[in-house]
């Protein structure tokens, strides 16, 4: 129809059984694919290893957020109680690590939660309004009774025909080329 349709997002293929998609995922992993994904109606135990996925990088942002929050809490209480307007409350020092500790750990928790929440958005590339996969007529079935492997065109190994044959050799059933 128009030029836009000629860009290929990737190749999708469906599977009917958990064991089929699981072993197919292992073979895709072993073939060295980087940009690909598996879509299933429910979590499959061991799929992370079968896909060769590394641990999520989100906890690093959580830690970073926590440390930032602790330092922010220290600066906040020190600046307000000891520097900008020194005030004696209950005979306690202007600033020590003890009396503002609830503030320090609440800030730690708050910023760690921010790190987790926004980190998850960053690594999941969210927000995103649409995805080429949603155009697939049978994509809705992966939330019901079908499993799907998608090989993306941005992977250096991708080749429209060879990837199609590769998926066929894995035992995939319906193979569809997804256009952007």
């Amino acid at each position, binding site marked *: 129809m128009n030029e836009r349709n000629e860009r290929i997002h990737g190749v999708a293929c469906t599977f009917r059984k958990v064991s089929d998609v699981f072993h197919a995922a292992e073979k895709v992993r072993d073939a060295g694919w980087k940009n690909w994904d598996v879509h299933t109606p429910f979590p499959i*135990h*061991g799929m992370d290893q079968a896909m060769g996925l590394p*641990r999520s990088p989100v906890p690093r942002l959580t830690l970073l957020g926590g440390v930032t929050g602790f330092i922010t809490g220290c600066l906040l209480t020190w600046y307000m109680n000891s520097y900008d307007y020194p005030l004696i409350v*209950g005979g*306690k020092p202007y600033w020590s690590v*003890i*009396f503002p*500790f*609830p503030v320090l750990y609440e800030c730690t928790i708050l910023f760690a939660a921010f790190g987790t929440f926004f980190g998850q958005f960053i690594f999941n590339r969210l927000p995103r309004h649409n995805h080429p996969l949603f155009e697939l007529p049978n994509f809705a079935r992966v939330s019901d009774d079908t499993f799907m492997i998608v090989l993306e065109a941005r992977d250096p190994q991708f080749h429209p025909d060879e990837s199609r044959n590769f998926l066929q050799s894995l035992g995939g059933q319906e193979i569809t080329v997804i256009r952007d």
Partner: protein
Amino acid sequence: MSTSSPHALTAHWKKFLAVGVVALAVVWWFAFAGVQHHDNRQALSVLVGSLFWVAVLIGMLMLTMITRVFDAGWAPLIRRNWELLIAGLPVVILVGIVPLAFLPDFRHAVWYWTDGSHILPSGHEVGHDPILIAKSWFLNESFFLVRIALYVGVFGLLAALLRRWSFAQDTDRTAGHTHRLHAVSAVGIPLGAVTLTMLAFDCLMALSYHWFSTMYGVWFFALSIRLALAVTVILTYKLSNGGWLDGLLNQAHRHVLGCLMLAFTVFWAYISFSQYFLIYTANIPEETFWYNIREFDPVTGLKNEWWGVSMYLIFGFFFLPFLTLLFYRTKIVAGRLLAVAWVILVGGIVDLWFNAIPRQVYDKSAPEGFSVTPFLTSSLFLDLLAIVGFGGIVFALFLRGAAKNETIPVHDPRILESINYHE
């Protein structure tokens, strides 16, 4: 009866019993000699040694019941070892705390509120202390002895029920036992919580009976679970290298134990700090003296040995396990998790020392009228010997139980889920 032959490890139970009996004989002899010479420190070794294992086993009892009510899928494989170990809980109380409480000389030496002629730092006798008189509806000797007997009874009953029906399932293969244990645990958790709180009040908080903290029971619960998890990690590590968990314990089991260790490390710190923080903020002398004697010398005002112990608790018992357990790999690499478990085990002993040992001792020559029990004494070795002694008894019973029963709950409805447990 076991359907499979007992594991070779169980043959070692006599060695553990021998070590336990010999160590306890030495500890009790020192405690007896100390009491004869009006020195209560050795009697406190019996208390510290028995409370260490009471904490470990109460933690395991609570974890057994908590995993039962939550139907934890990962638990059955590990829970069987808790069920085998908690047989020792009433025994440790019977061999350790009951003689201390029921023999008057020891009772007076350990809990000086029971000794009317004991001299307080104020120079007055305990018998004329208005604070004790006001508390005497609770702190009187007959009620105290009834309570100690109740601790043996309640924990003994809960341990017996949890063991009995779980072991019965190995032979008669009925799922009804799982439902029955569910009900026992639902009742047992609040009952156990009240009992362990009272035990912590009676055995530890009442050592300085002027002091009071409503968080004390929760602190003891947090410590118990931390110690129970540390012992579980060490034990399951041993059992997966030549024991009955060989080839069964996987990375996900370590991960779940590591996550629980992290959670209860934070919980322990939260409770311990809150207790300190509220007393620090309110700044009332009735409460602050308990922390003051753990920080500085009453005469010179300089930091004393207990200040170093406090710092160890903050950095060695909280920050070190907390910061290492934050990392995923610490929780799954067996050697690293084992190292953290040892750190928690050592820290737990230090925490018991911190809570049990320092007290105001009447001293006429001191300007403030009292001195503080020192930390660094040769009795620390007697404390460790007491821990070894009670531990010998606990593990002798554990191995005896393992010889007579299945070491894997083969007919638990969730045993396959537990063995194949996945992150």
